[in-house]
């Protein structure tokens, strides 16, 4: 199994400290070097809602409503005021999970049929973007609507099963100790009352003994003996109850520790659940509209996108294969031309690290909005490729060292940047690829 599968990488924030800057503009050394383009190390899978990808933007936060009420509230707040498209709104929701699924067992979820998968894993996203207004005049805005789902979701990984087995053993231990805790609690119940009665019997016995010894009231002798017997019985009961109370307290501490252990395992389980083994096929599609002057009522369709991402993770040898087929129309980076990417990446474990290589073929279609000529006046190339070799290695905790080299897509001005980076992945947070059920 890959220590750091590519699919996880896309869910992590990648901080590239460019210790070795990319040698951009290898073919054109006469101009001032442009800043190196952002190197998208692993963008085969959508890292966020496809609606955001259609807009070519990233929202500060993505609303993920969990209930119909949350969904309505989010849509109302996101609709904007005065019929104006808001800026930077993004929402993704899985309709099936908007209502609670009490009858859904984990086994049913993992062994879902195709129809069930479509229900479980289909998510709808919307997003908006609007450039900053100049003065008081609202600018054109864009909004996108997209859908994604998993047509195949592999099978639970060996890691997930191992964590599940560990959880089961710990849960059984928890139940066993819970019964002990219950039993000790039952035996310790009434301890306070018994202590009170013991104190009373002690006082009574003292009084009786004083009167028998000092006053010579021999008639109280039998009464004193009965009180003594009751006192001794209560003493034994209190001692037993105290022992049970001590055991209850100690067992409660053990249960707390076991619950903490279960919590740790549960987090690992949740993380492993979204990286199944076998064949996984993620599909997404969406459309984008332009809103003149940012008004909801003045829209026209201006683009669409389709993503097809097949993956295969081997069960034992750490091999991971990812393919991508990606079609986006009217891409602003390419003067509004249409873009088609087809690529493949293979990764495998190398010691504790992961070595992977990728190759993507990109072709551009259509005349675009600004004509075919590039900014340098040369012929606009309609085909380009990208290849890269990537290596990452765990340093400790959530810290990973990453390195890559290769050749990026040829830019519209004819340059072909070299990919050469060394950096650190700090692994902040995670974006869920699968619907979480909320």
């Amino acid at each position, binding site marked *: 199994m890959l220590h750091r599968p590519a699919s996880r990488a896309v869910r992590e924030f990648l901080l590239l400290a460019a210790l070795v800057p990319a040698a951009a503009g290898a073919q054109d050394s006469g101009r001032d070097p442009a800043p190196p383009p952002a190197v998208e190390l692993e963008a085969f899978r959508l890292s966020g809602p496809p609606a955001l990808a259609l807009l070519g933007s990233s929202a500060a936060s993505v609303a993920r409503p969990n209930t119909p009420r949350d969904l309505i509230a989010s849509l109302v707040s996101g609709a904007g005021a005065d019929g104006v498209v808001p800026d930077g709104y993004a929402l993704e929701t899985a309709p099936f999970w908007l209502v609670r699924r009490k009858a859904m067992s*984990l086994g049913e979820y993992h062994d879902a049929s195709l129809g069930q998968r479509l229900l479980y894993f289909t998510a709808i996203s919307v997003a908006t973007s609007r450039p900053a207004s100049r003065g008081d005049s609202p600018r054109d805005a864009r909004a996108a609507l997209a859908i994604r789902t998993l047509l195949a979701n592999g099978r639970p990984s060996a890691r997930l099963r191992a964590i599940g087995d560990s959880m089961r053993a710990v849960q*059984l231990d928890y139940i066993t100790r819970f019964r002990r805790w219950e039993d000790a609690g039952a035996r310790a119940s009434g301890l306070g009352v018994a202590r009170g009665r013991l104190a009373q019997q002690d006082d009574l016995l003292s009084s009786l003994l004083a009167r028998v010894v000092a006053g010579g009231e021999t008639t109280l002798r039998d009464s004193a003996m009965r009180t003594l017997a009751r006192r001794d019985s209560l003493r034994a009961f209190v001692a037993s109850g105290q022992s049970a109370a001590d055991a209850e307290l100690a067992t*409660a501490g053990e249960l707390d520790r076991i*619950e903490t252990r279960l919590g740790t*395992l*549960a987090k690992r389980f949740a993380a492993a659940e979204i990286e199944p083994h076998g064949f996984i096929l993620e599909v997404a599609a969406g459309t984008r509209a332009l809103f003149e002057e940012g008004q909801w009522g003045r829209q026209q369709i201006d683009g669409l996108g389709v993503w097809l991402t097949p993956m295969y993770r081997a069960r034992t040898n750490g091999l991971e294969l990812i393919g991508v087929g990606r079609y986006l129309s009217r891409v602003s980076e390419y003067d509004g031309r249409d873009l088609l990417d087809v690529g493949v990446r293979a990764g495998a474990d190398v010691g504790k690290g992961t070595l992977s290589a990728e190759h993507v073929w990109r072709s551009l279609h259509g005349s675009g909005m600004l004509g075919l000529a590039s900014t340098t006046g040369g012929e606009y190339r309609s085909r380009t490729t990208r290849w890269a070799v990537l290596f990452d290695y765990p340093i400790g905790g959530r810290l990973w060292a990453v390195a890559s080299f290769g050749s990026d897509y040829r830019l519209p001005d004819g340059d072909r940047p070299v990919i050469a980076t060394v950096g650190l992945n700090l692994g902040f947070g995670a974006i869920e690829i699968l619907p979480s059920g909320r």
Partner: protein
Amino acid sequence: MPRKPIALRKDYAVGSGQVRLSVLVGDRQYGTSMVFLDDELLANGDIDELPLGAGGEIAGRTLTVYTVVTDVRDKKNDMSVTWILTGGEKTATIERSGSGAKSFGSQMFKAVFELTGDE
């Protein structure tokens, strides 16, 4: 200190046939059970159609089912357990719901069935 269990106490009228127990952990959470007839451990783990015995043999005894559920969902900690008893005079399907005290927390569910026969 552990949280109070989500408890269920019910009578279940057995007949003459084989009585069986299933425990379903819902809300896509992870749960494990231990089943006791009086103080005798009958089974643990996933409980699916567990034979408890013929009605005549188990009448008058107490069936106790402990199920601990751990929240394994990233953003939702709803939990539910459903106990299904079959083979008696009627099928009993009883559900209890709860939630983890915190994200990735655990919750104990405890069901006690007094197995009753013809008096």
